């Protein structure tokens, strides 16, 4: 039995406290009114002298992006060349309003991204567990308790995700533009024909219902599979009824998951850009969650092993996990590129804006995260021997975790805060807070059951697994 050390507990709690403080600073530092934003711009302009004109133009472009569906974007756009004459006053007000909304969205988006990211790790790990059960893999049963532990985070993580979605739905924040008042009412200043055409699917009650149903469904499986595993441990020799039951539930879960995960990725992420759509978005988000989940399994396994637990786990198990990290990283890149290249090549205006925003306003992050998520795992983990060296696996793993956080970041931020992005207090704070909660919760679950699932029929094979 693993016991959570007080050192780890304190570490997790410190992460949460520091993270919460940073996030609070993020919320506090949001300008309280448009006048405050105007003041910020003025002092900025004073500092930069003549730079104001070009900067204001930049912001104009981004604000247009953020409000692309609000109808007056077109009018706003034609005003652009007239920036210096009579229109300047009106334009400036509008610009300040956009900037104000972006800055208001920033801490909410930061919390949303970090919350989703850690939730996704839990879910990815749970899917990996289900795959092991369904494929009746012989190498992995020794790691089941680690996977179950990480997967358990989807209970608190799912509840927090649902609360965040609920707050958005109740207009506590405005990170989802399609929820704006009157967006589907003809003649309203917010009217948007494209979003109005989607309201049959994309409306707050149905959207929340879907989110709730998915979170409950996933948690139901995770609760069952854990229970079956523990019951199997107590079963008599040769009685594998619980194991078989787990197999059936895992197979059903995988079918349920791949459909719901796809819909979840449209609902929770793609709908930030409600005009834009990509048919492989579900796969793309899945690849991200899968590789992050597997990486976390490897990191937690190596951590537990370094503390003297999991004595039967050998370097062949780590080798297999590293192979998955390597392979799924390349799979992720394949999907990223498939999505990017077709849209880039065809250059259709309503599609390509998605990438234009990212390349113009998020250049370093956008291409940097591709490099981190592709090149680093590729080069670090290519050599077969390196996949057995913990030090290499941990290095590659940390790159993958940071890289996929940034991946989610560039999926969400351009639509909610546009050019006003920065990785500062709310972003780092939210990441630390959820990291702390995640560590606290998963190790608590891991400590609740023996680390070796002694009833699993494949346990012997797993103990002798040798590549």
């Amino acid at each position: 039995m693993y016991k959570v050390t007080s050192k780890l507990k304190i570490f997790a709690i410190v992460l949460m406290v520091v993270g919460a403080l940073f996030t609070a600073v993020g919320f506090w530092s949001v300008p309280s009114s448009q006048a405050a934003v105007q003041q910020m711009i003025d002092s900025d302009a004073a500092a930069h002298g003549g730079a104001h004109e070009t900067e204001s133009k930049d912001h104009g472009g981004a604000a247009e992006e953020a409000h692309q569906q609000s109808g007056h974007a077109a009018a706003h756009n034609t005003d652009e060349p007239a920036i210096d004459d009579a229109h300047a006053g009106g334009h400036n007000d509008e610009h300040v309003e956009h900037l104000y909304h972006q800055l208001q969205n920033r801490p909410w988006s930061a919390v949303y991204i970090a919350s989703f990211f850690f939730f996704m790790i839990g879910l990815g790990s749970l899917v990996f567990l289900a795959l092991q059960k369904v494929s009746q893999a012989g190498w992995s049963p020794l790691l089941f308790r680690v996977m179950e532990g990480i997967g358990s985070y989807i209970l608190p993580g799912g509840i927090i995700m649902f609360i965040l979605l609920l707050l958005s739905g109740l207009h506590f924040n405005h990170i989802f533009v399609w929820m704006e008042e009157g967006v589907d009412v003809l003649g309203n200043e917010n009217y948007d024909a494209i979003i109005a055409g989607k309201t049959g699917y994309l409306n707050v009650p149905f959207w929340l219902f879907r989110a709730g149903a998915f979170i409950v469904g996933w948690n139901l499986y995770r609760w069952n599979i854990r229970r079956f595993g523990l019951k199997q441990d107590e079963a008599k020799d040769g009685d594998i009824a619980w194991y078989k039951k787990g197999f059936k539930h895992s197979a059903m879960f995988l079918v349920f998951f791949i459909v719901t995960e796809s819909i979840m990725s449209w609902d929770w992420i793609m709908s930030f850009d409600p005009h834009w759509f990509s048919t492989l978005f579900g796969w793309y988000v899945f690849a991200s969650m899968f590789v992050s989940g597997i990486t976390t399994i490897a990191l937690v396994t190596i951590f537990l092993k370094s503390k003297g637990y999991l004595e039967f786990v050998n370097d062949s198990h780590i080798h297999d996990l590293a192979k998955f990290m390597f392979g799924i990283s390349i799979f992720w890149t394949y999907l990223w590129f498939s999505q990017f290249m077709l849209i880039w090549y065809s250059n259709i205006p309503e599609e390509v804006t998605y990438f234009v925003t990212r390349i113009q306003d998020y250049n370093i992050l956008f291409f940097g995260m591709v490099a981190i998520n592709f090149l680093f795992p590729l080069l670090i983990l290519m050599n077969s021997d390196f996949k057995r060296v913990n030090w290499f696996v941990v290095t590659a793993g940390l790159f993958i975790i940071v890289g996929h956080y940034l991946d989610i970041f560039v999926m969400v931020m351009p639509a909610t805060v546009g050019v006003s992005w920065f990785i500062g207090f709310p972003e780092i704070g939210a990441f630390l807070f959820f990291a702390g909660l995640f560590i606290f919760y998963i190790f608590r679950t891991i400590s609740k059951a023996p680390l070796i699932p002694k009833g699993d029929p494949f346990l012997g094979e797993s103990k002798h697994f040798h590549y």
Partner: protein
Amino acid sequence: MSTKMIHALYTDDDVLLSAVKQVRDKHYHIEEVFTPFPVHGLEKAMGIADTRLAINAFLYGIVGLCVATAMMNYIMIEDWPQDIGGKPSFSYLENMPAFVPIMFELTVFFAAHLMVITFYMRSRLWPFKKAENPDVRTTDDHFLMEIDAHGADEEEVTKFLYDTGAVEIKLIDKEAH
């Protein structure tokens, strides 16, 4: 010059694997083992050094990537600049996404083909080469272990090999190649 060789035949891969381990424990030199299919763990049991083919594959892949880059840059940008997807920027870097599939394919192509050719050369295989296989049954259901009998007591070795599970043992003079 000819060498005395012992050919021991086995009918089961597990028996063969344990025999290889025992023979090596006795410090007899195993010249070669012929099997009808790859036996997992055999090269480790025989003490053969790891293959360096993977390193070659990596280098060949880099060659392929470079060839693809140089080729596409010459064809599409320098020699006859082309308008790619309505983006006539005449810059390799800005048009790079369009070339990625080619860069990928040629990386794989070079790595795969040069690796196969390297493998053939390293294994001394070429068209019309006379087979080195000493016994046709090793292409069907028998496993053959070739042991250097030089300076060993043949009687003793033969008895030892039967004990390891060999079904047939032959002593032959082999032309050195």
